[in-house]
């Protein structure tokens, strides 16, 4: 059963900023298709009268008070940045 087409897989790869060779794309498409086929089994479950759920935890309204906590120093905030400039993260041109 084909659930995902080559075009759809290519689109998803683009959205994920992945550059795939056509061999890789073939392979990924078939792997994604297997995964989706497996997950599709869930559609066989009888959901008649079951309310849609957005979360597996049976809890809601987890909120916090609007109280200020310490932030990181600029130095710590930038520690993982491969490149920085003027206190900011330096990133390549975005097009």
């Amino acid at each position, binding site marked *: 059963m084909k659930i995902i087409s080559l075009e759809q897989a290519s689109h998803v790869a683009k959205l994920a900023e992945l550059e795939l060779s056509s061999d890789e794309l073939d392979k990924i498409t078939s792997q994604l298709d297997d995964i989706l086929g497996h997950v599709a089994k869930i559609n066989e479950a009888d959901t008649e009268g079951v309310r849609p759920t957005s*979360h597996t935890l049976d809890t809601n309204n987890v909120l916090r008070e609007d*109280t200020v906590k310490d932030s*990181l120093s600029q130095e710590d905030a930038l520690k993982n940045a491969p490149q920085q*400039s003027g*206190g900011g993260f330096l990133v390549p*041109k975005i097009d």
Partner: protein
Amino acid sequence: MNKYMNNNTGEMAKYEAVIGLETHVELSTNTKMFCGCALSFGAEPNTRTCPVCLGLPGTLPVINSKAVQFAIKTALALNCSINKSSIFHRKNYFYADMPKNYQISQYNRPLASNGFLDVDMGSYVRRVGITRVHMEEDTGKLIHTGSSGRISESDASIVDYNRAGTPLIEIVTEPDIRTPAEAKEYLIALRNIILYLDVSDCSMEQGSLRCDANISLKPAGAKSMGTKTEIKNLNSFRFIQRGLEYEYKRQAGLLEEGKKVLQQTRHYDHLTDTTSALRLKEEAHDYRYFPDPDLVPLIMDKDAVQDIKREIPELPGEKIKRYLEVFGLPDETARLIASDKDTAQYFDRCANILGPGKLKAAANWITGDFAAYLNKESLKIKQSGISAESLCSLIEMIEGGRISSKIAKSVFEEMAQSKKEPQDIIMEHNLEQVSDEGELSKIIDEVIAANDEVVQQVKDGKDKAIGFLIGQVMAKTKGKANPALVNGIMSKKLKK
């Protein structure tokens, strides 16, 4: 304004504009939407971040309860129904303004929906439907390096995540707006309500109130909708109107030539007063929303919503109504006062002190000399240093005949300068109005004796000449003589 546009004179336009607005408002909470970092505009870059808002692995967002309250308050003021259950979604995209590669937003189960805002256009009221009010987090800021600062000409960008995670509400209207002027008035009214609610500073310069507009044209009276464009970068009331006017003209021109309007996102440039198409990747709008597994649903019970509803103050529309119907203020004065929350509060305090008989005098001062002074000094009423109590005692002195209204103006000026109480200024400069008939009579006799010629003119029936004589009395008393009394005594003496 151009030949295609309805210019409010009742002339039928060839094309009717269909406009909808999306407004983002940064909430003035102490902390961000999902973490305890402080909000602060203009702080050193990346000094208001933490592992949560930097999107570091293993962190979890926790919703700011104050932001939820502020959002509900706003939604209620816009006549929305608060949805019993709402959830947060991830809006996925790759851009360095969000370190997580997604923005937490709301999608198919927003906080509130189905409201409206009545926009007063003077000669008519436009009811603008509010489709939804939802919550989300703001993005970081990118500074594009290179001389022009434009994305297309830069080779790198510097990212500051101080703003990332700031609580935002997005307010989406129905496509109910019909003219660029209505769009502007809608935004002014929306901003004023939010300022009354005290949930945002709504500064368009600092970007805490931002607006995108969707506009399409259709032949007047037609039911079907045209192709719409979205205009971005409309960051002032004037630009909203100008950008939409330009876009109306552009689309009408295309339709006149039988060309198609392309569905585009366009950027408004206030320097050229035009819009131009933004080049966006075709897949840029595929955000693949899905419920954020890190956040559990928000359930709003009726009592909690009622509690928030009780906190909503009297809003501008209700204030204007009260000023007109209860206080009997002129329409323009009522609107002027209600258009600024602090001014309205100031006036309400004065009205309270002075009572119904004298509150109109307060309205006149506040919209007249006081407003002129604030305007001249570029001050807000709160910064004036003149308390409502001081202004009221000045008004009481005028109404009670202790000082003339002319003297009152200079007393007011000194109050503004020295922040002294009017009482003290009057004592200090001996400005109290002279209402002693004996004293005035004496001065009037002197003036009559010294101006034979003018006196004769008055006696010959030239009534206007009496003004000169009264002026002389005012000059002799340095403006302190009670003018009504002087007029009375003078007339009596001259008729003898």
